[in-house]
């Protein structure tokens, strides 16, 4: 598999949210608007690329029995670094995502890719896998966030599209997250079957 194929694989064929159904918790919780969804996606992508790279570099040094603790230490370190950097340089985004940043540690996409891909492939391919899966996650979250934001408030990326009183608040709240996610997954499945 060449690197470009690995990249596309993560975005379309093995899209973490819409096909593999991984990382549902941040997907539901952070997509109340498009910008939040996108920021969460990018934050996860950052951790994913670096963790894939580091894990594929150390894969031969780590004994099999302690590989999961080792991976968790690497991932947790990267997430904490990300948290501190975000606090220092993008405090506004940090304030909205605050609670969900530390939870990236237990996001199963990251550990899943470390186990399923980075532990078996070379560093370059692992980076591409990280970018691909990360982009797939970001795109899915941005899409769901945009749908929820538009239906819920009439805004898109915080830009006003519909009038003041337009909006079904439900879509910004928890039920809207489940509904939107369900429909997006259904549409993706339908498109995949038609192929």
């Amino acid at each position, binding site marked *: 598999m060449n690197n470009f194929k690995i990249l596309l694989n993560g975005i379309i064929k093995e899209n973490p949210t819409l096909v593999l159904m991984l990382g549902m918790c941040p997907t539901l919780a952070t997509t109340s608007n498009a910008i939040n969804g996108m920021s969460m996606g990018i934050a996860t992508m950052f951790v994913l690329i670096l963790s894939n790279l580091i894990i594929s570099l150390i894969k031969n040094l780590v004994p099999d029995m302690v590989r999961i603790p080792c991976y968790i230490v690497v991932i947790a370190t990267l997430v904490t670094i990300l948290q501190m950097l975000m606090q*220092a340089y993008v405090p506004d985004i940090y304030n909205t995502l605050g609670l969900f940043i530390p939870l990236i540690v237990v996001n199963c996409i990251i550990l899943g890719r470390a186990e399923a891909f980075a532990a078996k492939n070379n560093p370059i391919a692992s980076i591409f896998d990280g970018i691909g899966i990360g982009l797939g996650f970001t795109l899915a979250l941005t899409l769901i966030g945009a749908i929820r934001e538009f239906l819920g408030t009439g805004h898109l990326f915080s830009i006003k599209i519909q009038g003041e009183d337009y*909006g079904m*608040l*439900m879509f*910004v709240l*928890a039920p809207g997250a489940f509904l939107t996610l369900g429909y997006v997954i259904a549409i993706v499945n339908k498109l995949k079957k038609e192929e």
Partner: protein
Amino acid sequence: MVVVLTTISVIAGAALAAINKYTEKKISEIKSEKLAKSIKEVLNVPASEQLTVENDTVNDFIFHKTDKGTAVESTQNGFGGKLKVLVGFDKEGNILGYSILETQETPGLGAKASEWFQKDGKGCIIGKNPSTTRMGVKKGDEGDIDAITASTITSRAFLNAVQAAYQALFHGNTDGLTSATQETKIDACETVKPEETSSDTIVTKKTESPKASKKDKEDKKASTDGNTAATNVSAEQTEENKAATTDATTAATAQE
């Protein structure tokens, strides 16, 4: 096995320490900058003006004393978590302004608190004095302030925080709440008084389109005291329109 895990942990620890050292100063700078900006904002001081602030912490309250008045940090439990409010009082206890420092309220509902209680908001508290205006929501708490539509708990938490800040600052009562008893009102806001609207009116007007209510809103802005009663209807109507959009909305909001 042990060696590898230990080595990895040590390297991770070192990396974290280095990054922490690098970002620590910047993070605390951002925090104090934000606080300084908020203090000026709630005390009606232009951002360019210099302000000497004297800080004082008593229990959960932090007082920022200046010659223009005092800004008080006060925390209450909101709907989604801690709600931290900074309220500015002048020497008589009139509210000069407020700013929400920390919030985890529902976007689109409780998060509206940052605008709702401002001067041109529907639940204006600016210019009011907690000793003469009861800081509580109108429905249920016998207060004088309109709650945010469908966010009574957030409104209550917010008003409690304001009231607690007032009590702490002027009566030295830093551990609990006592509500104000006097009835006279000072009213510097362009508020409407929905209690005059009967619930029947709301139900019958419910079917009007959101566009119409938007127009009503604009009308309301231009309104004088003379037609307050008429504009009340539209205020309630707007709220009702929103709530009527879907049944599920009502369910979700009723919860809050």
